[in-house]
């Protein structure tokens, strides 16, 4: 049983304080417009203080050392993780009973966003504080939690998550890693590939098959017999993070290190991933946030044709679009996080309840992952463009942001896999009578989405287009409701995003149905105002 901790209290607080309306459930955005959603402006002053500490930590400890981090300077990254642990960052949303802080998942995501101004540190802290603990938190026995979680939440140990294999990536369940029971031990054999934190990890959550078919989760300590880590992969980006193979050669694991039920390891793996995807969304807009800061600062400094390039319309348009899409991604992520907390509050506690809670908003988690990582890609790309030739060199930090961002669309389920999953889930829930695909009718996009879902079609291209429409509807609705609740410059950010989202939606609709479609004009793109706001604060938009 999870302890009654802050996580769950906060979820309830949000409902009682009227910050989110009560009736939302997984996929319900498709057919309903909630009265209220949670927005980043709703974090309380002391929560904002925590977020501020995260940003300070990034700016003072991480950003001055990017070169050394990328060279994997001996001991540097583990020492930063320990430092982060002292401040509470290694167990933000793990229960207090295991020396975590027991904060809400939504706040944990926001804190991670600000710890993610650099991708390499982001993935390191994100995995050890998140996906390496969540399986234990949700599915572990009390004794297992007591044994391992405090070491991870303090930052004394670093954790890793090992699902992928050389021949088993997207098709994760085709894994060939085996587990056999020999007397009082499990013996594991196989190779896990692309394991983040491998070089530094003390504990791996490993998925392996018993009898060649029953996927089971195991807690594998680094120093167990038969466990080794291969050389670092030579990566395009995230060079400061460790990615290597975990090699299990007759690795001996005590029986009590089996996590959850034999044959149900996929529940552990995939529920950790649902929440992991949600957090990855916030971890992707962290670097995008930094790219906006870099681009705005550079645009103000750089002069051509006798004036600051920040005065040129096409540069301002970039800054405005970066701000608009960032705003939308941010709106949907923190709306979703509050919903996840609400689900845990209402259903969590027992292992089965935890599983249902982690799954409830899986559609929204995928939508957040796909949209945010694609927004990140757009922002880091345009940031390079603002820098011109200098952006293409390693003299300036934007090249690193660009390289580091690329993998966001690949891991925690590729964006293709997430797209297939998203539409598939929506249709499955509709079939089960748990939601209606009739559309909320609250926007152009939601009408297009409902029409496309009603269209007879098949195949992945069709499914992918439906997915885009659903994702864009969710983002649009989130951006719209936040603008309605908070007003100010957000009205313009919403309009700017809307124009792009409608065009994307129309394209997806054509792909899904083959029909021509009219796209309404967006009244005011707010390019000058949005650019001015970004240039003034050298940051994504804040409420005015």
């Amino acid at each position, binding site marked *: 049983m999870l302890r009654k901790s802050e996580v769950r209290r906060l979820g309830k607080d949000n409902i009682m304080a009227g910050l989110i309306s009560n009736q939302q459930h997984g996929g319900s955005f498709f057919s309903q417009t909630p009265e209220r959603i949670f927005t980043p402006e709703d974090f309380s002053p002391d929560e904002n*203080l925590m977020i*501020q*500490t995260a940003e300070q*930590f990034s700016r*003072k400890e991480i950003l001055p050392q990017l070169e050394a981090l990328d060279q994997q300077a001996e001991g540097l990254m583990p020492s930063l993780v320990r430092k982060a642990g002292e401040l*509470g960052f290694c167990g933000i949303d793990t229960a207090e009973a295991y020396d975590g802080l027991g904060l809400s998942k939504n706040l944990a995501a926001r804190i991670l966003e600000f710890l993610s101004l650099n991708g390499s540190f982001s993935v390191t802290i994100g995995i050890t504080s998140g996906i390496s603990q969540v399986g234990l938190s949700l599915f572990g026995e009390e004794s297992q939690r007591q044994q391992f979680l405090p070491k991870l939440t303090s930052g004394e140990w670093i954790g890793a998550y090992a699902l992928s294999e050389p021949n088993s990536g997207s098709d994760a369940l085709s894994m060939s890693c085996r587990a056999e029971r020999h007397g009082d031990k499990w013996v594991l054999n196989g190779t896990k590939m692309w394991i983040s934190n491998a070089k530094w990890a003390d504990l791996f959550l490993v998925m392996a098959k018993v009898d060649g078919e029953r996927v089971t989760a195991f807690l594998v300590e680094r120093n167990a017999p038969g466990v080794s880590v291969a050389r670092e992969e030579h990566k395009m980006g995230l060079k400061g993070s460790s990615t290597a193979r975990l090699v299990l050669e007759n690795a001996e694991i005590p029986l009590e290190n089996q996590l959850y039920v034999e044959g149900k390891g996929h529940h552990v793996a995939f529920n950790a991933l649902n929440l992991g995807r949600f957090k990855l969304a916030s971890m992707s807009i962290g670097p995008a946030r930094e790219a906006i800061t870099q681009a705005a600062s550079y645009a103000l400094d750089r002069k051509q044709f006798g004036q600051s390039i920040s005065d040129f319309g096409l540069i301002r348009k970039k800054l405005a679009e970066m701000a608009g899409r960032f705003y939308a991604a941010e709106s949907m992520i923190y709306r979703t996080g509050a919903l996840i907390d609400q689900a845990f509050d209402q259903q969590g506690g027992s292992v089965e309840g935890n599983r249902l809670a982690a799954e409830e908003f899986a559609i929204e988690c995928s939508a957040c992952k796909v949209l945010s990582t694609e927004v990140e890609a757009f922002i880091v790309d345009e940031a390079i463009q603002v820098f011109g030739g200098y952006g293409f060199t390693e003299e300036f930090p934007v090249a690193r942001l660009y390289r580091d961002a690329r993998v966001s669309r690949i891991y925690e389920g590729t964006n293709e896999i997430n797209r297939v999953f998203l539409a598939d889930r929506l249709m499955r829930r509709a079939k089960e009578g748990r939601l209606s695909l009739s559309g909320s009718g609250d926007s152009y996009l939601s009408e297009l989405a409902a029409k496309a879902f009603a269209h007879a079609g098949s195949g992945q291209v069709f499914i992918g287009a439906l997915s885009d429409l659903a994702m864009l509807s969710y983002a649009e609705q989130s951006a719209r409701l936040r603008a309605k609740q908070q007003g100010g410059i957000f009205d313009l950010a919403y309009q700017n995003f809307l124009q792009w989202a409608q065009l994307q939606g129309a394209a997806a609709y054509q792909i899904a149905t083959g029909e021509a479609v009219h796209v309404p004009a967006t009244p005011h793109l707010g390019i000058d105002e949005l650019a001015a706001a970004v240039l003034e604060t050298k940051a994504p938009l804040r*409420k005015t």
Partner: protein
Amino acid sequence: MKILVPLKRVIDPYAKVKPLGDGSGLDLSGIKFDINPFDEIAVEEAVRMKEKDGSHEIIVVSIGTSDSEEQLRKALAIGADRAILIETEHIYDSLGIAHELEAVVRAESPDLVLMGKQATDDDNNQAGQMLAARLGWPQATFASKVEAAGTRLQVTRETDSGEEVLELPLPSLVTADLRLNEPRYIALPGIIKARSKPLEKRPASVMSSPKTRTVRYDAPPARAAGRKVSSVDELVAALQEKGAL
């Protein structure tokens, strides 16, 4: 030892502020607030003293509307033990603040008042000195180092002619300079703990009328464009021309 740290809620010192169109005040929309940085240094110093000697008690006090609770909670998160908000909408000048703090000091009887040398919004650099004078206490301003020496304090202050080391009996008052310390990251467990630390609200008791009045707010005039010179000779000539040499 009982340490009282007064602190002020100020506009984020890094924010760009603009006056309202009619000059009647500042445009505060979208502006963040924080603890006056010098006061945060004072809180940090008190917490460090407490880390050396756990018997110290740290009380933080602020004067203002309930908005200042946010800054008091932050000070509690850094490590203060309890907070007092003198809740009022009254407008004070430095002397008025000294009056109000004097009442708090008389009620709490601290051994040490540790506060910022000035606030970054008005930059007056007066409240500490005025408070010490009203209490008749010894004072050490612009401290760059504070050490407890038995029942006395040794304070290093930075002056234009070098460092000056003062020894003060207790009770006394010290104002913090920028170099006293570098405030720590506020650890998340501290923020959670601060939620349950006592924050007491009291009404203002003195509310003396300010002796100064703000007439209007204007933005500083835009800086005129400079001129580039190509040699030292040209620079000297230009300065002479302006009558600066």
